[in-house]
């Protein structure tokens, strides 16, 4: 996994990144956007256009923060999110799934 959306996205959800992503791997949660670690091709377009700096390459973060953000983005797809009955897994495109109103609970990260 190479690019992530950090907590700087919380309350912003500018979503410029969604238009730029060529593989539609940026999913919308209730509070922020999430990049699917298995679908991202690491093109960097999201980071290029993100107005808040939330979309970023993992290699641009400090080691501890990188691990935390990687886990948080990954958890959105591997955990059972509040209000859902199964993990999202790999939907193969955010457009297919549509926006969600739920997020990874902070205490479970």
């Amino acid at each position, binding site marked *: 996994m190479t690019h992530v959306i950090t907590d700087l996205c919380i309350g912003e959800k500018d979503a410029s990144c969604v238009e*730029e992503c060529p593989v539609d791997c940026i999913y919308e949660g209730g509070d922020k956007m999430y990049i699917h670690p298995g679908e991202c091709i690491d*093109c960097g377009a999201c980071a290029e256009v993100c107005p808040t700096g939330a979309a970023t390459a993992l*290699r641009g973060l400090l080691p501890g923060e990188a691990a935390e953000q990687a886990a948080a983005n990954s958890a959105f797809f591997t955990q059972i999110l509040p209000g859902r009955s199964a993990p999202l897994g790999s939907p193969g495109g955010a457009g297919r799934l549509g926006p969600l109103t739920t997020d990874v609970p902070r205490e479970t990260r």
Partner: protein
Amino acid sequence: MTTTERPDLSTAGLSAPGLAALSARLDRGETLPWSWYTDPTLADLENQRLFRRSWHYVGRTDQLDAPGRFFTCEVAGVPLVVVRDRELRLRALVNVCRHRGAQVVREDCGTRKTLQCFYHAWTYGLDGALRTVPRGEREQSLDKDRLGLLPASVETWGPFVFVHLDPDPPALAETLGELPTLLAEGGIDLSRMRFHSRVHYTVESNWKVAVENYLECYHCPVAHPGFSDVIDVSPDAYELTVRPTFASHRGQVREIPRTPGYPVQGPVVAGQYHLVWPSLKVNVNPGQPNLSFGPVYPAGPGRTTGYLDYFFGEDVDPEWIKAMFEFDNQVGAEDAVLVESVQRGMDCGAVDHGRLLLGSESTLQAFQRYLLDALGSSVDGKGVE
């Protein structure tokens, strides 16, 4: 069939002795060899020595009025994207991905936040710098700093955007010369002109036939009765001027128009028609402030494409615009018939060159002189052996 002596008038005449012979013929009023208007192998040479060494009008500044606004175009076979970057600087970039060669931007125009290639998602900034390469981290020696989109050059004059394929070309002002002054003196205030529409056209002739037809008005009394009803096309009244980088016509409105035509009264008292080498047309008709501006390009040895961007003064009555378009379209339709007839004559091969009337076709002779000099020059400026 002509019975005159036939020296080497083929494209092989681009040897130094051939050039000298052609130059002497031009001085005497003979034309360039008509094989130059039919030979498909000349296109590469024209691209290399004319079009790739010239400034080209490609669009308007109002199409690029915010960061990320862009349009694409093609100059001498090279795809370009012209874009306003985040620092508001205009950029002209070769629209070819440095990875495998795909066109990075495929739309005609729009707004982009990045220049991302649709093939493998190599992502360039609006300044053309390569920002990210998917899986690039796995490569040992991928130097992104050396793999930005290649720069071309861009300059503006009023609302007009010009590009040049050379990243370090001579200034646009050198090409324009007196043209801005001539337009201003003729009643055209570019700051008050508004874009109206772009009109595309194709004619079945070599592009040089189309340019040469544009360059003289000797044919006007015969072939353009509507134009000649409005403009005094007699040899003593109609002015032709050869300048270093372009040629001009200036035609006064007849004191008593023969027919009403379109309403020619207004602040623009004369028509002016300029051809900037190699192929940019700049037209002003008499009457209300108006301007059409655009290139012709080769589309094969016997086909020419072009467009004209029409501009009018901000207060010009739409009915006047409609009437002027009718006038203009009539002239264009008549010209298409003329150039296509000329091309058939050249294509048949029965006659190898023509004879100009220098008193009325000095501008055409100047264009052929420009062609001969430009095509005959190699990169170091010497003749081709």
